[in-house]
């Protein structure tokens, strides 16, 4: 800019006209990229590469294995269903969480994974242990009993997620999942945010459309 006499772009009180400096900036960009790539000038391709060859090369970069996995795992047949908790009975350090799935969303489908997401607000440098239990109805029994339990050590505030096992998956495919949140003490229980609009616990179930959804042609 010294030569042109116009003001320095970063100096005090300068105003900067983008359009008039465009060529300068484009040159600066070229120089900067070539310098970082340790190239003295841009490469000139002796023989241009076709799009198809490029695509093949990139697929090779990803590796055959990835390709197969992709074929096996057809995401178009999967979707995720989210259900927010209804908080039920609770005692000093236990709270019941109920999640409902409509028949259309999850019923009769193959539930691949169930994740529980919940928000914890901890005092600084505090840790806390809690247990998440999956409740089921046993045959000939009207009361819910827990069939599996997941201990969890929480050492920071924020959202936490817990992947639940086959019992939870089975319950989701039947349309209703009941969990019980157990903490060490009443005070600890207070740190788990169960209500409120933006911190309500929820379950994300990854579902694969079951056969019922597919049309078979005989």
């Amino acid at each position, binding site marked *: 800019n010294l030569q042109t006499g116009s003001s*320095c772009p970063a100096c*005090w*009180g300068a105003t900067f006209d983008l359009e008039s400096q465009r060529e300068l*900036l*484009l040159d600066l960009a070229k120089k900067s*990229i070539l310098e970082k*790539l340790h190239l003295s000038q841009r490469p000139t391709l*002796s023989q241009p590469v076709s799009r198809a060859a490029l695509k093949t090369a990139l697929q090779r970069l990803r590796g055959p294995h990835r390709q197969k996995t992709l074929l096996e795992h057809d995401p178009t047949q999967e979707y995720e269903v989210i259900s927010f908790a209804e908080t039920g009975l609770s005692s000093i350090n236990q709270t019941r969480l109920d999640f409902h799935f409509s028949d259309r969303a999850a019923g009769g489908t193959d539930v691949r994974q169930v994740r529980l997401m919940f928000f914890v607000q901890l005092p600084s440098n505090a840790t806390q242990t809690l247990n998440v239990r999956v409740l089921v109805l046993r045959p000939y029994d009207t009361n819910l009993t827990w069939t599996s339990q997941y201990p969890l050590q929480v050492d920071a505030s924020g959202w936490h997620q817990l992947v639940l096992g086959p019992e939870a998956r089975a319950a989701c495919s039947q349309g209703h999942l009941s969990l019980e949140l157990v903490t060490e003490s009443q005070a600890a229980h207070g740190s788990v945010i169960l209500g409120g609009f933006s911190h309500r616990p929820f379950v994300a179930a990854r579902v694969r459309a079951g056969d019922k959804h597919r049309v078979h042609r005989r």
Partner: protein
Amino acid sequence: GIDCQEGSRMCCRQEFFVDFREIGWHDWIIQPEGYAMNFCTGQCPLHVAGMPGISASFHTAVLNLLKANTAVGASGGGSCCVPTARRPLSLLYYDRDSNIVKTDIPDMAVEACGCS
């Protein structure tokens, strides 16, 4: 950080996108389509001097150079408008022998500016 708006004179981030097609580099750079060579410009009056800033960056080097060149002409005091956050530029490109090369160049895109 503040993005430059029409008529803002305060230290801000000026967006500037270099389209590789526009400069004829789209044949050897496969991805991305361009480079956000944003830069920092604007005033740093004393009352905002000292807002967080970092100095080890490509733009700071250029700014220091410009400052040195024009130190005589510079009037007024305060601090300079410099990048405070940056991100890398990931490039996928052909080299001279038509090999595909992937490189991450650190600190290439300015995300935010501040007075330092």
